[in-house]
């Protein structure tokens, strides 16, 4: 400190210069003990080596523009299989002239985010939007009722992933809530059916269910009736996630004191009003973190549909790495996949954090 001693004390307490502070912070948090210091130094060394190397490979020496693998001469990553086939990754085999429909469907799905962040909006509008979204998306993608029909065999890539993810989430939570309520119902038949359903679904691997959806469902339908394979795997994802969500929500229901039910009853609330206005709002806010984990799980599980022949983004990635002109570029393609899922799942996670914070603020 070079300031005169008479002023130094009060100043250093309130607006100390940043440098000594940073040093103090580092000493306290990075080098408090010999063991800690070694750990900090190793981490620092690793970062100093890794970050430049990674950035160099990913960006500075990478090739973004070109026609074929022969153009990748920089020594870094070769992003050409993605940039050259980006249309395939996003739209799959969707007819070029109709791609605007996919764009509109994506925009509607993306529109959920600002809507969910909006504070001043009536909740009923959000619910109406949520309820309509799956049907509007399906109509846009599949066609009919004014739009030329597109066979769902042409659906592939991000289009499939986003459709399965968004529609799955919209349906899984309400179904999970109903199952949880059913499991606690005082009516034995409803209770038994819900318990049976939840236990059955939870005890079978999701892949098995997907195979059943793709191979067995058709056997039980009358001849001539055909359910789109995309809808069948979607149903599996919803039914599967809902069973897990039901258990999470049941846990939340058990955490609500009996007094809340009694107060609601005493004020003349009916069963459904008690649940919808008093109990579930409290349960859902308490179960945001585990429910979010399940949403993220659902989104990532959409990749399993590839196994039954639905080409989602992973399917397109695999067909890309198998194409002769892009052989040997698995690293880049799978890294791109990882980044795609990370961005979406991280955004979901941030939204949940935002919700939690907002609710904490309203409660404290």
């Amino acid at each position: 400190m070079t300031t005169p001693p008479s002023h130094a004390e009060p100043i250093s307490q309130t607006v100390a210069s940043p440098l000594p502070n940073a040093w103090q912070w580092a000493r306290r948090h990075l080098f408090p003990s010999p063991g800690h210091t070694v750990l900090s130094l190793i981490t620092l060394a690793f970062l100093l080596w890794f970050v430049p190397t990674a950035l160099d490979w990913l960006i500075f020496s990478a090739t973004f523009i070109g026609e074929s693998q022969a153009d990748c001469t920089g020594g870094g990553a070769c992003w050409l299989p993605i940039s050259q086939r980006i249309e395939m990754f996003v739209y799959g085999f969707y007819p070029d002239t109709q791609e605007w429909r996919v764009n509109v469907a994506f925009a509607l799905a993306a529109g959920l985010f600002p809507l969910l962040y909006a504070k001043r909006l009536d909740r009923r509008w959000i619910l109406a939007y949520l309820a309509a979204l799956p049907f509007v998306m399906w109509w846009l993608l599949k066609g009919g009722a004014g739009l030329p029909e597109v066979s769902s065999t042409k659906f592939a890539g991000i289009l499939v992933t986003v459709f399965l993810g968004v529609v799955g989430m919209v349906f899984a939570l309400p179904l999970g809530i109903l199952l949880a309520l059913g499991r606690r119902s005082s009516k034995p038949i409803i209770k038994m059916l819900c318990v049976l359903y939840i236990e059955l679904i939870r005890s079978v691997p999701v892949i098995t269910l997907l195979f059943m959806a793709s191979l067995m469902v058709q056997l039980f339908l009358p001849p001539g009736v055909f359910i789109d394979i995309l809808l069948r795997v979607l149903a599996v994802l919803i039914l599967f996630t809902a069973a897990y969500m039901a258990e999470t929500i049941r846990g939340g229901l058990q955490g609500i004191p009996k007094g809340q039910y009694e107060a609601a009853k005493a004020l003349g609330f009916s069963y459904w009003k008690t649940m919808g206005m008093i109990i579930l709002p409290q349960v859902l806010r308490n179960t945001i973190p585990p429910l979010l984990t399940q949403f993220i799980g659902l989104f990532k599980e959409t990749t399993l549909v590839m196994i039954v022949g639905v080409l989602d983004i992973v399917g397109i990635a695999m067909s890309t790495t198998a194409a002769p002109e892009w052989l040997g570029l698995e690293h880049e393609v799978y890294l791109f996949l990882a980044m795609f899922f990370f961005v979406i799942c991280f955004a979901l996670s941030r939204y949940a954090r935002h919700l939690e914070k907002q609710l904490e603020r309203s409660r404290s």
Partner: protein
Amino acid sequence: MSALPQQDTAPDCVVRIEHLDKWYGDFHALKDVSQTVAAGERIVICGPSGSGKSTLIRCINQLERHQRGTVEVLGEILDDNVKRLERIRRSVGMCFQHFNLFPHLTVLKNCTLPQTANLGVPQEEAIERALALLDKVQMREHANKYPGQLSGGQQQRIAIARALCMQPRIMLFDEPTSALDPEMISEVLDVMVDLARDGMTMLCVTHEMGFARKVADRVIFMDHGEIVEQAPPERFFHAPSSPRTQQFLNQILDHGVTRA
């Protein structure tokens, strides 16, 4: 409004309980209890814990289902008819030991939601009524807070206002001051005394004997699921006829539970 107890089942009898029996498993909680309450009557029910006093008033709005006997409230016999039960509950307010405010709603919303959801009162009118009643319990300035931000006494006063928002004809109090710190008890009792002076029909399970002396038309003493004694407060406190009542009064008076 008449403050005197009605001797028979007059037309303004609002609660009629006949030969009520209630079991929890093997435990016989209420044994052949009969009782009538007239409109405007203020009744205090006391007795040792486990004596069935809470169970009795919880049978009046059927938070506890009874196994035998009849409960008739506002001229309707309570049975398995859920719609009728919900209708009756809207006319019978209740306050609980642990307040049971809805923690996810503001104080104001706690008071308006039951009106809009169950009585179909328009939003503006519900707010007006809620604010007037919050004013009455001196909680108006806290209308936009959440229950978790308030003290027990404040929460209980809001719970009373919330129940009154439904414009009930009967109010049930289930040990409303038992969970409160001593310094908060009087603020809740003051509100209850005001309510009694306004002529509300009240059934209070409480150990606040000062409150009983001040407002009760009748004090009921219960023990082991039975009504042992009932009398106007002067007679009840000064000349109880049953030795069990005598013993109970001695116990609570000795330990200074009562307040003037």
